């Protein structure tokens, strides 16, 4: 009577069994997510467990799928699966290590403390320039300890205006990325990278000197790698110099103020074999009186001061991630009649609301930051005080907290009068490089399609006459500017001009 029902029951039971099998297989294969599998060999797995994360620059980019012994039992083989989006960061030459709590000695202290309260994890670092990404299934040898020769992620990135230079030394003497650079006992920078010269003849130590101290580095400066030195004799007593280097070696230098020319970026200098025996002069009497030494940004030879203008902002978008806007160009620095440090530049360089547009009208621009890099390397914040209402792509900035000794363009080098303007006048455009150092002048006309030329100063007959602006302001927003126009300075309002003009 129930014949069909018995069949249906049999099929239901069969279906249930198959369903259970499928579910079990699905759950088991749950971690078969798309990704790039890699195998990393370690001598010691250090308590790493399946499910531990893999991190690159502190971000979770994958997971450990299994930890097993190699067939010969000599190594621990860790299978990791990197997220597809992050897999390109693991390249040939990347260093993999296991992060566990470790004590790196007196100088390095403790690291990996986060793994005291959570599981050990695998980290990797990729030196730049990057190699080719590791193909899926690669077997790489892991390191037993964190690498020191890749760019240390704990170092501050160099700021605009910092001096980046290279010290050449016969031997490293224990310097590491992050080691200090010391001038007169003050930390003024750090060691970025240490590499053996290609031919092995010496060691190249990359240094960063903070921008506020770069004026102390001249081509006459003497650099040395500090090691403790014992001098004296048994009866007269001993003096230990650079005792601090016992714990952490550092780079020291000495330069006499006012001697030599300032070191440019990329400056290379050979280290002295030992600490130079120089007697530091006493504090100058003038400094005692003024209470402040007088460093100075030396004015360029023709007296026209071109500064670098760096602009950043964020365009808020409702439905998509916010766009970051980064621009860099030039500007003309002088001191106006009320003593403010004014920079005239292209408005399309420093005003994103002027160049950006979206389908809904005016976009929302936030977090605007304008920085001005002075020729000496100092970086100052600036604010927009004027834009040309007549749409000539000209803007004026005023520097916040400009130093009182700031050297601007001398008033007689500026041409604000209309009758002095000769559009066909021969001249050049002056630009500055990323570090504030002047670049070679280039003839007007060849600035087309160089976004870096924005805000460059047109100099004719020894006078600053105008500023390079964008022909098409919306093209600046797209990053492909045609910048052949020059706007003459007479558009700048009277209250922003220097005294007497």
């Amino acid at each position, binding site marked *: 009577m*129930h*014949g069909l029902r018995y069949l249906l*029951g049999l*099929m*239901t039971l069969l*279906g249930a069994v198959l369903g259970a099998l499928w579910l079990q297989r699905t759950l088991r294969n749950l971690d078969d997510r798309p990704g790039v599998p890699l195998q990393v060999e370690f001598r010691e797995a250090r308590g790493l467990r399946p499910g531990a994360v893999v991190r690159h620059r502190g971000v979770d980019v994958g997971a450990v799928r299994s930890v097993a012994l190699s067939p010969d039992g000599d190594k621990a083989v860790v299978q990791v699966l990197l997220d597809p989006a992050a897999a390109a960061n693991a390249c040939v030459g990347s260093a993999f290590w296991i992060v566990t709590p470790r004590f790196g000695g007196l100088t390095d202290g403790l690291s990996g403390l986060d793994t005291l309260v959570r599981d050990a994890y695998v980290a990797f670092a990729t030196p730049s320039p990057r190699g080719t990404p590791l193909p899926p299934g690669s077997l790489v040898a892991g390191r037993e300890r964190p690498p020191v020769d890749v760019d240390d992620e704990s170092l501050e990135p160099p700021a605009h205006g910092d001096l980046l230079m290279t010290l050449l030394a016969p031997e490293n003497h224990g310097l590491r990325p992050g080691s200090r650079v010391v001038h007169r006992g003050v930390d003024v920078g750090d060691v970025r990278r240490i590499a053996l010269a290609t031919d092995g003849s010496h060691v190249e130590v990359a240094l960063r000197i903070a921008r506020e101290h770069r004026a102390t580095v001249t081509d006459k400066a003497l650099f040395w790698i500090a090691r403790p030195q014992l001098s004296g004799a048994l009866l007269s007593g001993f003096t230990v110099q650079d005792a601090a280097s016992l714990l952490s070696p550092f780079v020291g230098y000495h330069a006499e103020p006012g001697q030599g020319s300032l070191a440019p970026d990329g400056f290379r200098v050979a280290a002295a074999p030992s600490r130079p025996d120089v007697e530091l002069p006493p504090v100058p009497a003038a400094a005692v009186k003024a209470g402040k030494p007088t460093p100075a940004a030396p004015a360029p030879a023709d007296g026209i001061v071109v500064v670098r203008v760096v602009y950043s902002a964020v365009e808020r978008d409702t439905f998509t991630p916010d766009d970051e806007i980064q621009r860099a160009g030039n500007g003309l620095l002088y001191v106006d009649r009320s003593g403010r440090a004014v920079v005239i530049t292209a408005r399309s360089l420093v005003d994103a609301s002027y160049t950006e547009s979206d389908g809904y009208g005016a976009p929302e621009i936030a977090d605007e930051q304008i920085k001005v890099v002075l020729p000496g390397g100092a970086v100052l914040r600036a604010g927009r005080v004027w834009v040309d209402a007549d749409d000539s792509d000209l803007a004026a900035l005023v520097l916040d907290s400009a130093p009182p000794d700031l050297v601007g363009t001398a008033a007689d080098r500026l041409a604000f009068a209309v009758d002095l303007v000769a559009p066909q006048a021969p001249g050049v455009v002056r630009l500055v490089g990323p570090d504030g150092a002047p670049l070679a002048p280039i003839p007007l006309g060849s600035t087309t399609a160089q976004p870096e030329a924005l805000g460059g100063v047109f100099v004719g007959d020894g006078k600053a006459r105008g500023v390079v602006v964008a022909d098409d302001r919306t093209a600046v927003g797209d990053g492909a500017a045609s910048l052949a126009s020059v706007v003459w300075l007479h558009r700048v309002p009277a209250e922003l001009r220097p005294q007497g003009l």
Partner: protein
Amino acid sequence: MTDAAITFAGFGLAHRRAGREETLLHGVDLALPTHGFYAFVGASGGGKSSVLRLLAGLVEPREPAPRVTGDLVVLGQSLANGFPAALRGDVAAILQDEGLLDERSPRANVELALRQADRSPLLAAGLLAVVGLDHAPDETARLSGGMRKRLAVARALASSPRLLLCDEPTAGLDPAGARTIAALLRQAHDQDRQRTTLVVTHDLPAFAGTLDGVLVLDRGRRTLRLEGPGYEPTAADTAAAPGDGPVAASEALHGVRTLLLQAAAFGESLLEAVRRLPPFELAETARATWRACVEPAPFVALGGGVLGGLATFFALQNNPLHGGMESALLTGTGKVALAVLVPLLAGFFFCARVVAGATARLGAMKRTNQIAALQMMGARPADLLLTPMVWAMAIGMPVATFAACVAASFAAMAAAAAASGTTAGGFVHPWLAALTGRDAVVVVGKAALSGLLVAVASWHLGIGPKRSSADVGEAVDRAIVAAMAIVLAVHAIVTFAEYA
């Protein structure tokens, strides 16, 4: 053969129970002529009701059927391969529990039967007048015993059946009431020249003068015979046969059969839920969905609020670190609460609030033969009961979950203000920081899927065999456990697959 309403050909009937099998009838050859009004008498437990249910197509699908040998032909159609669908409407039965739909008015009961028989619902008034119920109360539950029988007759006549079966229609009535019902049945019988009526009864005097013949179940000979209208029961007819009694049968086989039938019923419930998903009874479905959305929401929201408030309060109070740490705590608590914990608790609360009631209702309907009555009318119980439940729970559960999440958020905001003085603005951002649209989709998906499965489970357990109120109670118990297990499993699997 054509003038026989029911033909028994070598018919045998045996009850199967765990470990034993009892032969009730054996080798019956009998033809019941058309257009007779017959009483069906015999000792209790002799198989009268089994024969009647067999004839009405009401064999319980989840238990091993009585063993039937030979052939049984009803209105020219053999029942050897189950009850032919063509016979629905031609055969009507008035069961001992009348199976009246208590939730509907008497008139609506008759109208439903008329609609199922493709007849105009306007005929309901006439049918009610025929059985003397033209001034009946509006609520079926308030009808007296006699009125219920009359209404059952009216409803059975709605499809103008050719074979009308009655199981003890006069039980529980006083002699006068019994005679009235007997007369009513005879009157109804005479309305249609094609109609054959078979009445199982112990009360032959009530039917005196109305009968065309008496079908006697001879317990001793395990056979049926047709007697004249003047039949008087004899002791020989009710005496058990010598050597009568159950014989041993394989217990294991019975167990396998029961298991397969249970599995089949489970599969059938799932298939029904899918096949009958379109809301054929739109009004019923909409009403049930509306109620499932509105009624449990406050209760479930209360649960969500308590959970969200407590979790946040103690997370912040036990970690008295202000600033970023507090934000991080709120961010974590918000994600865990809104995406995982509160939906799970909302599912539990929803089950407790809705599933027990739904299963009890179905169980009671099954117990009082309302499901059987619907089946006999040719109505699909699934359309009227399962589909609305599936829709109601698959929509009601996400709605309740949403209510719980909202309540949890407000409670957490209040708790954060109390524990560490967090302002509303400072609360909202971290609380919602880690949530994405995908989380919302996952939460709604979890709730809808578990609601759907819970509805199927409730249906499946509710319409299982119900011989007693204890069976109903047990079904409710099981439904609550099953529903919570389903909620737990669905949430665990989906959450694990999504976030692990």
